[in-house]
């Protein structure tokens, strides 16, 4: 590595004189400001490096230092509640503008952690097994694990007490171990077994949980043009889903949104633990004006952090907003290195890169024997809302659920604008079985019925636009009305009304059952000869307001409303 110098600077892509002594994906430091970069191509006399910083002023002849290994990040207590850049440098400790260079340490060396060992001297441990535990935040217990590649007898371990991340707390098989460890972000952390998805990830968002559910350890993509409410939808999931740890990767997106997330998450309480939402969240921010190449690393950094918490036995969720910006970073890199483009300038490796990223999701048995998961949710920002473009079309092939956001719904201020036509959920059959085993055998049938009703209504709607709603048969007018009730009373969900921000599964079920019950009763009344005009005059506004006029946990309140309303409906029959 000695003697390698810069020979060419083309924006964030830099060529070096010698590739000898370097390995693919090695981390190097370039020029007088020691700009970090990663080796992305190697030849005998040439290496190409992507630099994670602005390269202005960098010139041929500048010197290069190798780190001797790949890009690794430091994983340990103190990640939760923090904000980091794409290579996990802390942003809280930096000034108002991000100056380049500067390799600050991920984890604070000052903070004290109350470490409680869970093993003793002489115990035999292997990679991934637990050394001890510390309370990282009020919400999450942080288990200190034996790093991958280390095993043997515990020769020495500290007693319970306060320690810093830099302190040695144990010696195992000749290795001195601290509270933190390093991990190369591009490499999946090992597990003892991959398991099939089984239980639902409850997002608290009705349209997702009722119609397009995702299992823990599964994957979902959210394609949507700008203005369709993608970011708000993701933030709602980040706030309310029932995972233990959320890793939110703002990848090439807006800086103001991140400021908003920080502010809101700090103020909001997790309804399950009563603690600040920030206590279970790791924010990775590489906004659109930050160096492009760090965007490429940021999604892997996010997954590596999630895998780290998974290995402690937690269910983690990675939210990547937006994978399209990440793919664009790949494209820019390919273009600058002269790689042949495949579709729309994207490199031929795009689809395998996407597949590799989503495949890091999974429900697993950890090396320590726990069942835990990483769920990956990726936003997709299709140019021009074109869902046939390469990133969207390849992503659809690899994910288990697609939550497609619809511009027409957003236009009509129907949020979340998840389309029932273009969305899908491959986990739904398995989850229907799980629901049946956990006290709700009707779950699958309700889902099918709801989707059928919505599809029927779409068909009737298109006819109504031609002939006018008044010329439709009574049963079809009823279909239209109930579908509207479904949209306004169940599928639409406010991100700001306190009763409506999230909904527990029990209340979700109660709301949907109410609408379906109204449909069934009204159908029966129609068949029994009640004129449609009488049904039209029946006030259904309590159904629409039930979602926000009750508490998020208010299943009983909804059922109360249902009892009264159905009672009133039944009395229509009596007065006929």
């Amino acid at each position, binding site marked *: 590595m000695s003697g390698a110098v810069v*020979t*060419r*600077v*083309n*924006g964030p892509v830099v*060529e070096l004189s010698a590739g000898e002594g370097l390995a693919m994906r090695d981390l190097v430091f370039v020029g007088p400001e020691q700009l970090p970069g990663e080796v992305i191509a190697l030849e005998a006399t040439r290496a190409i490096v992507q630099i994670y910083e*602005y*390269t*202005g*002023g*960098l*010139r*041929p*002849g500048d010197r290069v230092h190798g780190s001797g290994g790949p890009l690794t990040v430091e994983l340990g207590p103190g990640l939760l509640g923090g*904000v980091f850049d794409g290579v996990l440098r802390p*942003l*809280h400790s*930096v*000034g*108002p*503008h*991000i*100056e380049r260079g500067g390799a600050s340490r991920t984890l604070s060396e000052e903070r004290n952690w109350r470490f409680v060992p869970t093993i003793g001297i002489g115990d035999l441990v292997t990679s991934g097994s637990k050394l001890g535990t510390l309370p990282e935040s009020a919400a999450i217990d942080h288990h200190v694990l034996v790093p991958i590649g280390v095993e043997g007898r515990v020769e020495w371990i500290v007693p319970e007490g306060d320690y810093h991340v830099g302190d040695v707390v144990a010696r195992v098989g000749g290795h001195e171990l601290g509270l933190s460890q390093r991990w190369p972000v591009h490499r999946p952390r090992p597990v003892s077994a991959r398991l099939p998805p089984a239980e639902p990830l409850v997002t608290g968002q009705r349209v997702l949980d009722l119609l397009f559910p995702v299992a823990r350890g599964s994957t979902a993509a959210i394609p949507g043009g*700008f*203005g369709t409410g993608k970011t708000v939808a993701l933030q709602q999931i980040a706030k309310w889903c029932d995972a233990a740890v959320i890793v939110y990767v*703002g990848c*090439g997106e*807006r*800086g*103001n949104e*991140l*400021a*908003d997330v*920080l*502010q809101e998450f700090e103020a909001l309480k997790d309804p399950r633990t009563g603690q600040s939402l920030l206590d279970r969240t790791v924010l990775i*921010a590489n*906004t*659109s*004006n930050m160096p*492009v190449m760090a965007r490429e690393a940021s999604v892997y950094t996010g997954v590596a952090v999630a895998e780290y918490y998974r290995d402690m036995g937690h269910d983690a969720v990675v939210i990547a907003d937006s994978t399209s*910006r990440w793919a*664009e970073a790949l*494209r*820019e890199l390919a*273009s600058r290195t002269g790689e042949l483009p495949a579709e*729309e*300038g*994207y490199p031929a490796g795009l689809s395998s890169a996407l597949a590799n990223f989503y495949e890091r999701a999974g429900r697993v048995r950890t090396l320590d024997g726990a069942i835990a998961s990483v769920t990956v949710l990726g936003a997709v*920002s299709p*140019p*021009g*809302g*074109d869902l046939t473009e390469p990133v969207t079309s390849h992503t659809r092939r690899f994910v288990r659920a697609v939550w497609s956001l619809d511009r027409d719904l957003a*236009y*009509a*201020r129907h949020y979340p604008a998840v389309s029932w036509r273009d969305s899908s959920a491959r986990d739904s059959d398995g989850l229907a079985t799980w629901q049946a085993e956990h006290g709700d055998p009707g779950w699958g049938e309700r889902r099918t019925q709801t989707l059928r009703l919505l599809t029927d209504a779409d068909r009737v709607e298109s006819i109504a*636009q*031609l002939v*006018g709603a008044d010329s439709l048969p009574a049963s079809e007018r009823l279909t239209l009305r109930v579908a509207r009730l479904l949209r306004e009373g169940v599928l639409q969900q406010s991100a*700001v009304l306190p009763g409506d921000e999230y909904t527990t599964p029990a209340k979700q079920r109660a709301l949907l059952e109410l609408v379906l019950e109204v449909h069934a009763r009204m159908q029966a009344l129609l068949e029994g000869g009640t004129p449609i005009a009488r049904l039209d005059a029946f006030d259904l506004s309590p159904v629409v307001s039930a979602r926000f006029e009750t508490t998020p946990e208010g299943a009983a309140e909804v059922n109360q409303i249902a009892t009264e309303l159905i009672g009133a409906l039944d009395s229509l029959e009596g007065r006929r």
Partner: protein
Amino acid sequence: MSSQAPIEYRAIGSIRGPLIVVQDVDGVGWDEVAEIRLSTGELRHGTVLDVDRDLAVVEVLEGTAGMRLDSARVAFSGSPMQVPVGEGWLGRACNGRGEPIDGGPPITGGERRPVAGTPINPAQRAAPNEAILTGVSAIDGLATLVRGQKLPVFSVGGLPHLELAAQIAAQAHVAGEPFAIVFAALGLPHADVHSVRSVLERRAQLGDLALFINTADDPVVERIVTPRVALTVAEHLAFERGRHVLVVIADLTNYCEAVRQVSAARGEIPSRRGYPGYLYSDLASLLERAGRIKGLPGSLTQLPVLTMPAGDITHPVPDVTGYITEGQLVLSPELYARGISPPLDALGSLSRLMRHGAGPGLTREDHLEISAQLYGIAARARQAADLAEVVGEDALSDADRSYLRARTTFEREFLTQSFGEARSVEQTLDRAWAVASLLAPEELSMISPPTLEARYRPASRDGAPDPTR
């Protein structure tokens, strides 16, 4: 680089479009500024786009017309482009590189800043709040501009977007706090520049306006630098001098054309419609310079104006911009053809940050409710209008007809506004209520009962159903 005079290079290997390749260079850094002296004595400027051993590719801001391979001398400055910053820019008019065109002396200042800027640390951003009031009902009422936001105007050739931009620049205020406007004209025709300048005359005299003008016949590549110079000046005024700064950039489409032209000259692989794959990152490097910073008093707000080629909102320029900005104001040729001006398409327009900058304690307590209701009315009126096209207006229900009436008032009394008229928030919201009050109260589902009680004032109209029924 140090105290010696910079080395001059004479060997230009090739000239292609706005790019020259300088040979046998030594120690030249990426993004460095170059000065090119022609044999006629003319001085031009450039920046380094690529440096490969002893070859440097330089993009010439003034263009390469008249340059010869053998007679130009190129010197490199040793650092990326910088401009002086300070209050000296206020009240001045400059070309796209920051050279005065108002007959005054060059702008100098004690401090200089790189035009590339440094990204704002997202963890140190303060979430935008508080409005910038433009005096335009369509914007203040429906899509309030918030300090620190970036909110573009999407228009189509032939619509009065420049008049609107000039009106905003002339009228905008922040309720008495220190304020400044930075206006960057990119590739505008002389006639347009002239009318913009005359509208902004008073503001320039008051000394809170900096003008940067690149006209349609100015060098194309200069357009890549102009917004960066303007933003660097604006950032300093905002974050080091504590002013609220509104940067108006028109027309951003011309900027993107310049980026595409340079990319094509470099032989880069295009993505959509010939635009380079990095168009998103490039535009973000401009637009993300908007914001507020924790603990600092000022703010930088951007209002870029762009024309959508062929009126296509899925064209890469509006599409990429819309993904970066916090909402958009869309102008509609269809409304303009009906005589509505400014022709703001309410349903296509949105200010994502509005709820942080409008409402109780910020503008007026009923603002968010009535604006949500106006959107609702516009959406419902459109359905009614679509239906009327099929079945005829007579076949509509009473409710649908009342929506069509409300829409007419909305367009004529609320949207329509002359380019010289500044309306207060009070006036704007009162006009909004005049629209909403044309509907029966039970139609106003987005307004809470107390607000309805306080503000709903139905006018008695002949032949109209009693709205209180």
